[in-house]
């Protein structure tokens, strides 16, 4: 999969509430970060969901519950994005930033190379020392 295809797949997965697919595109830490931000509203309204979000990193059952709940929530929303990719920026031998526009707003998505596979990695925005 190319980086652009990964980016498109990232938004499609969120649109469709397909969190399994989303998880395959990203590093685990970035995936958990995505779940935390996508689930903020639910956590605000529901104390038990807030606890699940806190536990999901170490508790696979909590993670599964979070995924089920959020998947349903996302499917109930109709998120549509207009994405246009702009350029690549190398941040070292194993990380790349893709600049793009989302609904005309400038955005970035970072990738790091994990054992030969490029994964979305929100923590990889720093240029690595050579």
């Amino acid at each position, binding site marked *: 999969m190319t980086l652009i295809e990964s980016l498109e797949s990232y938004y499609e997965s969120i649109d469709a509430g397909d969190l399994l697919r989303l998880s395959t595109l990203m590093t685990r830490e970035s995936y958990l970060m995505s779940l*935390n931000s996508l689930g*903020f509203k639910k956590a605000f309204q529901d104390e038990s969901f807030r606890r699940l979000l806190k536990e999901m990193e170490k508790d696979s059952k909590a993670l599964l519950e979070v995924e089920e709940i959020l998947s349903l929530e996302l499917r109930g929303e109709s998120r549509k994005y207009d994405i246009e990719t702009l350029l690549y920026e190398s941040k070292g031998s194993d990380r790349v930033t893709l600049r793009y526009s989302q609904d005309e707003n400038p955005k970035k998505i970072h990738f790091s190379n994990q054992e030969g596979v490029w994964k979305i990695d929100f923590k990889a925005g720093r240029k690595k020392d050579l």
Partner: protein
Amino acid sequence: MEKSIINNRRNFIKVMGMGMLATATASFAKGASVSLATSVVLSDEQKDTLFLIFQEEKVARDVYVTLGKLYPEESAFANIQLSEQEHILSAQVLCERYGIDTLSVNLSLDDNFVGQFELDPMQELYNQCVQLGQVSLLEALKVGRLIEVTDIDDLEKAAEGMPSDVVNTYENLKSGSLSHLAAFETAISRES
């Protein structure tokens, strides 16, 4: 009249922001030799964490700037957004000390940049916070409370295994967040 007060407050924040940046840079200049003398070297993962925490601090500030404009009668947002600006600068100084370039993050308080995030999860978080806070002042204060609780958790996690100067800075940020949390709790009690 009300618009003028908001503009004055925003200009004050801009000036304060610039002033704090100068102070922080001067402090950094003094502290840099200490950092070099101790020869502390961070791993790539630790540097990435420093950079992420720095970027996350902008989310809280921008949410409070936006909610503060929605509820200008509530002083908690105005007071805490100033403190959040200091948090950003503390995290920025830490990044600079370890050679992490922070120039790619736009910290401008210009209307065109407040609430704009290049990373999707941060944009998502900001959007959800503002959407929830738009319902009422009470809900906005509760959003503030949850942001601070989340910040405290994130800082505790980020401090694990870090050298003492990073831990100290994160402890200071955590103290600030605890004080913001108390301010939001007080305001929530008053509004409930």
